[in-house]
């Protein structure tokens, strides 16, 4: 209930004590604020203060008002049998409780105050994930209700060691952030760094967990996400199980997983459902697709601008014929087509689902065909742009897919200046950048650099589960073995 409760206890002596006048003054000009006066059978006068839009009115009547009026107890605390009522001492505590959907209960004569949580259950039902959809496996996904999200994880990890620590961030949004980890398994250094990161956040308003990650990350200028965002509880539970930690943010269905590596972003929940050989093949395809999506178009520009001799003769005939009437250099031809592709992709995302699909078809076929006929682009480029665009969507992490685009443009420019040497330079730059990135101070390219060979069983391929008896070494878990016999 109170994110900073302990701190508040220490400061109570210096803070304004809670009073009816103080609370009433705070609620001025709030038309959904309600102050009800009741009297019990035994004659005790009680004030109930709450914000109508935030509390469950039905439960208020059933659980608070009715028992209060008909009770013959001599004190209010005896009348309200609620295990989670908390005493309130200061005006700030009272205000925070009201804004979090609590009922403030005041026994007028002795001026005692309690807060009882009665939040309105405003939540959508549990639906399947749209961003990380899979054919087989669990279909549930997180919603905007943080408690519901914790429940979804706890059901998968019904152990006492699963700890959740709550924080409140945002001077305006008062967003609840919950840090989840498995005590005795997750490396304590990660927990300390994460807590420090959350405590150091100083910002007013939060609408999504990505803002939390942005304020906790070290390399803010990177296009690569240093926290993995997911709305899948099974992914979170698995992450907790191998020694990562989870940050849940209220009012957003996307949890943050940390520390992560670049290779984590290529893993799909389906990897652990498919047979290991199939899963490994698909994972390799994903890496290859990512590489193709960033390199294919720049390679086309490099070959057609500088290295014609690299293209086999039969292919060169096709290419030369295709490019013979174009008014643009390969760079501008590719640049324009990629910009058009990005416009189509962005537009289809913003449009209603059915219209978006139609737009995709129009963009893909009609504009592509028309630009070839109009002499704006070669047929070969259209094919390559299509392949690169589809390949980019094979990466399960949407943020990484978006990063692709920018990398592609950088490589495109370098390829137009220095051919394949330019592409190599771009790749060196990207790998050097990735090599220096960290997630919760852990290297982003682990287990490649630094090298942890044992962890490769579940990085480039997904090895058989029988052989994956150890947790990833790069996560430095306190319990190394996944089998009970060895721990």
């Amino acid at each position, binding site marked *: 209930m109170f994110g900073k409760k302990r701190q508040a206890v220490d400061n109570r002596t210096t803070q304004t004590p809670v009073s009816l006048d103080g609370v009433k003054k705070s609620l001025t000009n709030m038309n959904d604020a309600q102050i009800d006066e009741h009297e019990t059978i035994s004659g005790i006068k009680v004030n109930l203060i709450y914000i109508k839009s935030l509390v469950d009115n039905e439960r208020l009547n059933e659980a608070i008002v009715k028992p209060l009026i008909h009770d013959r107890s001599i004190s209010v605390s005896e009348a309200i049998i609620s295990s989670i009522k908390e005493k309130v001492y200061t005006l700030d505590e009272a205000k925070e409780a009201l804004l979090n959907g609590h009922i403030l209960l005041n026994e007028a004569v002795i001026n005692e105050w309690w807060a009882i949580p009665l939040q309105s259950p405003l939540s959508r039902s549990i639906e399947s994930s749209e961003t990380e959809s899979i054919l087989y496996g669990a279909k549930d996904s997180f919603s905007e209700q943080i408690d519901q999200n914790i429940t979804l994880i706890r059901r998968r990890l019904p152990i006492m060691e699963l700890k959740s620590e709550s924080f409140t961030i945002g001077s305006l949004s008062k967003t609840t952030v919950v840090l989840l980890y498995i005590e005795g398994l997750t490396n304590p250094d990660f927990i300390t760094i994460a807590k420090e990161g959350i405590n150091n956040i100083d910002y007013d308003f939060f609408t999504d967990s990505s803002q939390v990650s942005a304020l906790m990350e070290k390399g803010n200028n990177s296009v690569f996400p240093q926290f993995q965002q997911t709305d899948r509880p099974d992914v979170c539970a698995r992450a907790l199980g191998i020694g990562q930690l989870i940050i849940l943010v209220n009012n957003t269905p996307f949890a943050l997983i940390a520390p992560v590596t670049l290779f984590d972003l290529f893993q799909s929940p389906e990897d652990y459902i498919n047979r290991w050989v199939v899963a490994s093949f698909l994972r390799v395809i994903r890496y290859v697709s990512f590489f193709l999506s960033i390199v294919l178009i720049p390679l086309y520009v490099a070959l057609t601008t*500088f290295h014609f001799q*690299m293209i*086999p003769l039969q292919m060169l005939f096709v290419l030369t014929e295709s490019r013979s009437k174009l008014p643009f250099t390969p760079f501008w031809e590719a640049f324009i087509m990629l910009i058009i592709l990005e416009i189509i992709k962005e537009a289809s995302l913003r449009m209603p689902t059915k219209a978006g699909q139609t737009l995709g078809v129009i963009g893909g076929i009609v504009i592509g065909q028309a630009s070839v006929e109009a002499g704006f682009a070669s047929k070969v480029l259209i094919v390559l742009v299509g392949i690169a665009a589809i390949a980019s969507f094979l990466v399960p992490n949407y943020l990484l897919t978006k990063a692709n685009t920018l990398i592609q443009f950088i490589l495109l420019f370098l390829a137009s200046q220095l051919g394949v040497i330019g592409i190599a330079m771009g790749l*060196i730059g990207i790998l050097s950048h990735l090599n*220096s990135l960290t997630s919760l101070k852990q290297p982003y390219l682990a287990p*490649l*650099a630094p*090298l942890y060979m044992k962890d490769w069983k579940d990085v480039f391929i997904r090895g058989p589960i029988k052989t994956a008896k150890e947790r990833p070494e790069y996560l430095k878990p306190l319990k190394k073995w996944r089998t009970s016999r060895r721990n």
Partner: protein
Amino acid sequence: MKPISLFQKNMPIKAVTVFFISNRFQVIFFLLVFPQYIAHSYMIWFIIALGILSQGNLYILSKWISSSYSTKGYAGFIELFGEWKVRILTAVALLPILVKLSVLTINFVSTTRYYIFPSVNPSWLIFVFLLMSMYVAIRGMENTIRFSIIAFFTVIWIILLFLPFYFPPNAAWINLFPLTHSWSQQTWKGILFIWATLSGPEYLICLIPWLKQDQKIVKYMTWANIVTVLELLIVLIASLLFYGHHYLLLIKYPYIEMTRYLQNPIFERIDIVLIAFYLFHLVFMVSILLLILYGAMRIIFKKVSKETTRKGFLITCVITTALIIFLNQFLWTNERQYKTWMNIEVVMSGFTYLFIPSFLVICSKIKRRRR
């Protein structure tokens, strides 16, 4: 300018990284140069013999690495020699570092021009490659050392491309014989070149403070040495089988040249792609050497106690780039000058690899006895 933490030690680097650094430092020179006087089948024996000798040298080096002076880094050297002597020794060490840096960069630029961009100004290419290396180096010593793993994995697979040259019709096994020889001046040159090729692990002396102290370091250096010897043998034997000794003597870059004959349905001229991949290797080497150079400058100019700055590092890089461009422009203009520089590099690398580890071990022993 803002201080940057170029030499900060956040997380000790795993000892296995020594394998990648040693191996990459060793093979690059051979792959870039591959001189004519090594193009004999009897050199196979010398590669094996010198590989074994190099192992002995690595053992001496490991003695230094495990000493208390080594782990203290700069402070250890001060303890051993005193500040003045360290500054003088560092100033002397600048020469082999600069020569290595220049020879590697200019050779790579020459290869790039020969195969990819014949009309591009070499100074421009030197500038671009140095700029790239600077970008990698500016992320700090720790990250640059880790980059050795990336450099290793991006090029090691290339060796597999040479396997087709071991089988007919590419291979003519008759070319490999006879495996004996008559001793000549060329033989001495070949031996010296192979020894210079095996050099490089001595640069680990500058990198010890970032590495995790581990008993396995010598094991990883041994593996690096073995892999290097195997790589050299694979390339030498493949080129002898493919070209034959007499034709091999006429080719300037046999290593790259061979890959031009590889057939691929998607790309022709695979050599262009391979040179691009070898850029990873070069950039790693140059970035490490730039950082070592900057560290050396800080020692010479008594700046060790102060924070590293972008300005200082930038000045070091600019001077180095200017020096290499000057060298390429005026002192590397014909074949005779090229050979002279090659000889200087071979002698210097061979000398530093042979004597520096022994010198340091002897000095530390003497110091301990005096106590």
